[in-house]
């Protein structure tokens, strides 16, 4: 949005006391969202935050916009209906790994394939927080929690990979501690015309503290984080000394300097779904760094846009200009005197 901001951060802060645990990663996400919104909207009344159930789903109460705290896993359905009713709104779904990918998994995948023009912020902390610490569908296998004292048995989902499989057109990843990056991803999601998906790694300091510490600790993060930039080589490491090299169809982590130069390193292309698929496989993979940034961004027709077109077409095609009266009186009729 090119208009000069007419709002400040405080205009997006509601009068409700924020009630997450002290130290929760959600605070940072809320603050960055409130900070970035004056830059992306001049019509606060058009902004709607919709959530399901869980810690992250309290988010709408704290934004001074329209907000709907719905039921567990079902925010995508309310958001879809809202966009069907009014395609002009700026709709934001806030969900968690349990809400969006366990109980609400079905809705997420269908939302992505329909490509309704809205934005999804997944707060992935890999744990159930509000119900006090059970493993979630993104928890690593073997997770010891209250419900899995001997370790969880099920293999986790990789949300970004899952939504790519569900034909998502915009997939980005970021981290609660990466403040500027988080803001940037929100702006990018907002700019995308279609269903945009941001996976945000979020630390639950009560039930899953340190789940992403490798990606946030100063000592390790440069080694473990791959910051994606469209059109730029995939370089990481403390001195930009490593990169992703494509050996045939296999990506490899290589050292830059001797055998490989920067020119050998794979260049990111947000529009390339094969690169996006490859990058999504780096997650929780010991060999590869964790990619953050826009994995994939390619526009295609939106459901709400197509629906509006179909509605217009139906009205245009309707040469007979039938009225309600005509429909009531359609078919064989007869008079009784």
């Amino acid at each position, binding site marked *: 949005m090119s208009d000069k901001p007419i709002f400040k951060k405080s205009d997006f802060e*509601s*009068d*409700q006391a924020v009630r997450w645990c002290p130290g929760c990663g959600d605070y940072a996400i809320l603050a960055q969202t409130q900070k970035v919104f004056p830059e992306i909207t001049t019509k*606060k*009344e*058009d902004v*709607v935050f*919709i959530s399901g*159930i869980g810690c992250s789903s309290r988010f*709408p*109460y704290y934004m*001074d*916009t*329209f*907000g*709907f*705290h*719905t*039921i567990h896993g*079902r925010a*995508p*359905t*309310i*958001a*879809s*209906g*809202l*966009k*069907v*009713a*009014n395609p*002009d*709104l700026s709709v934001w779904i806030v969900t968690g790994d349990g809400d969006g990918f366990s109980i609400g998994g*079905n*809705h997420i995948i*269908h939302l992505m394939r329909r490509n309704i023009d809205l934005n999804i912020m997944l707060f992935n902390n890999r744990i159930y927080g509000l119900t006090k610490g059970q493993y979630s569908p993104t928890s690593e296998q073997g997770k010891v929690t209250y419900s899995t004292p001997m370790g969880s048995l099920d293999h986790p989902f990789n949300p970004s990979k899952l939504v790519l499989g569900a034909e998502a057109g915009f997939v980005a990843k970021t981290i609660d501690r990466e403040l500027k990056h988080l803001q940037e991803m929100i702006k990018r999601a907002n700019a995308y015309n279609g269903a945009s998906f941001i996976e945000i790694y979020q630390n639950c300091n009560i039930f899953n503290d340190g789940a992403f510490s490798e990606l946030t600790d100063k000592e390790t993060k440069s080694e473990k984080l791959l910051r994606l930039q469209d059109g730029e080589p995939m370089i990481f490491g403390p001195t930009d000394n490593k990169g992703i090299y494509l050996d045939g169809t296999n990506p490899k982590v290589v050292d830059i300097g001797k055998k490989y130069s920067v020119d050998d390193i794979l260049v990111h292309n947000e529009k390339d779904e094969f690169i996006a698929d490859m990058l999504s496989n780096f997650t929780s993979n010991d060999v590869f760094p964790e990619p953050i940034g826009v994995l994939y961004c390619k526009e295609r027709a939106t459901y709400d846009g197509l*629906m509006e077109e*179909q*509605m217009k077409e*139906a*009205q245009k*095609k*309707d040469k007979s200009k*039938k009225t*309600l*009266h005509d*429909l*009531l*009186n*359609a*078919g*064989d*009729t*007869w*008079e*009784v*005197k």
Partner: protein
Amino acid sequence: MAKKIKFQTLDEVTIRFAGDSGDGMQLSGGRFTQTSAIVGNDLSTLPDFPAEIRAPAGSLAGVSSFQIHFSSKEIHTPGEKPDVLVAMNPAALKVHLKELIPGGILILNKNAFTPKNLKLAGYESDPTEDASLDDYYSVHYIEMSKLVTNACEGMDLPSKTIERTKNLCALGVLFWMYDRPLEPTIDWLNQKFKSKPEIIDANTRALHAGYNYGETAEITTRYVVEKASLPAGKYRNINGTLASCLGILTAAEKSQLNIAFAGYPITPASNLLHTLSNWKNFGIKTFQAEDEIAGIGVALGASYGGSLGITASSGPGIALKGEFIGLAVMTELPLVIINVQRGGPSTGLPTKTEQSDLLQALYGRNGEAPVAVIAPATPGDCYFATYEACRIAVKYMTPVMVLSDGYLVNGSEPWLIPNPDDLKDFIVKFEKENTSGEKFLPYKRDKKTLARGWAIPGTKGLEHRIGGIEKQNITGNVNYEPDNHQEMTDTRYQKIQNIVDEIDPTSIYGKKKGDLLILSWGSTHGACKSATEQLVKEKYSVGHVSVQWINPLPPDLKKILKNYKKVLIPEVNSGQFRKIIRSEFLIDAVGFNEVKGRPLNPSSIVDKAKELISE
């Protein structure tokens, strides 16, 4: 030599068309219905088809039927035992013969009685060969397949296609027998198969072949069923699906609201989605959701956005929607849920009718979650009940459930075409822009109705948050205080009770006071009214009341119940409404309950009523 034909006048006739799923019996029944409507009979129909799309040809499971009851008097049910049975194959005969009245007319497609079909139907010997049927019925053995083959001789069509026209042949025989015109059917064929003249020709020939068979064969009696004297006006035939959809469209036109209908395919509710999907030119948006939960979620989301959200389903789908209905109650948004009830529990009897979701409609949610419930009485009444549901949902900012059922949506009746201007006004008031600088109060209420305002996203100054957590009255903020929860629970209850102001005085058929009141809700209306007519004719002191609003109940019902010594409540369930009436009014209401997947028979209700009166 011309044969001698006798014309006999009858008050009413019930015909059942039965055949294999692929035999086109629904079509024959539908055309006979349309023609009977045009000649001015009152009528009522009951299609009955298997849940399987194409059960093995010739099998008992694959039998599909269509019953029409038509009359020169006012009638209210699709009839009980048929006077005429058309059986297109041995399986249809096997399934339906036991219902044909003794001495009834039996029309058989003789060509279908092959050893293979007989075996599939479980016949040891061919019943059309041993004359056993002739002792009990007036049987016409018609070689329909042969008749149509001869009629279509010389046409360049596959024999299979020609064979498929035999349903028109059967129809032709009946048109001759009941003295009805062929033109409406021929016009319809011309319209339906516009681009396939050879199909029009073959079917028209088959229709004539059947009619001419009547002229020339050994049938000597034709029947006349005169026009019924219905209230004056313009009529059409209508089923409950179309009536409900027209009710929705009328609501859209009168309110100027956009409609968003979201649903998931389920028998027998899917036709609502199909019908409305054709009305995009009227601005109706439809959304086929990924599941039942999404269906109602999308509808509620649309309502939140300022459209009227509507969803439809049947029992199993309604069970899945329960949590969302609770959210609609909590957030006080308009929402219409059409439940086309079918046999339950679980998957139950998907294609058969039942009234067993009443308690689910009233109580099937967690917490104190009152929902307005309205039940149409006849296929045509689906129009009025659905319109009213839409109007009340908006006026009272509440979910409203329409309790329809399989019989209502598929059954049909002549319908006095209403004038939408005669319906109650449908006024919509969205909350206006708030530039006062003062905080918007989303749970501030209308003093009379207790409805909160409809504040839709996109309206300046109305930014606010709603959700499933208990709200503070007026401000809408999250609130866990004991007294507030009590107040809000009471308010939500009272808001639904306030709908009594919208309910017209209850009309009573028959005696206004007396020995017995027959009380019905929903689609048992017809059977109960017919039973009451019979009882009144026999000088019994009986009245009939059919309630359309179930939550809240009509305010005058209490007084009416007191005017009778006994109350009988016939239902296609095990006594759910009786439970409500007994608990609400502390009266010893008696039930007549049957769950056999079909509407109740008036005669059974008459018997039960007499038994009660004589006790």
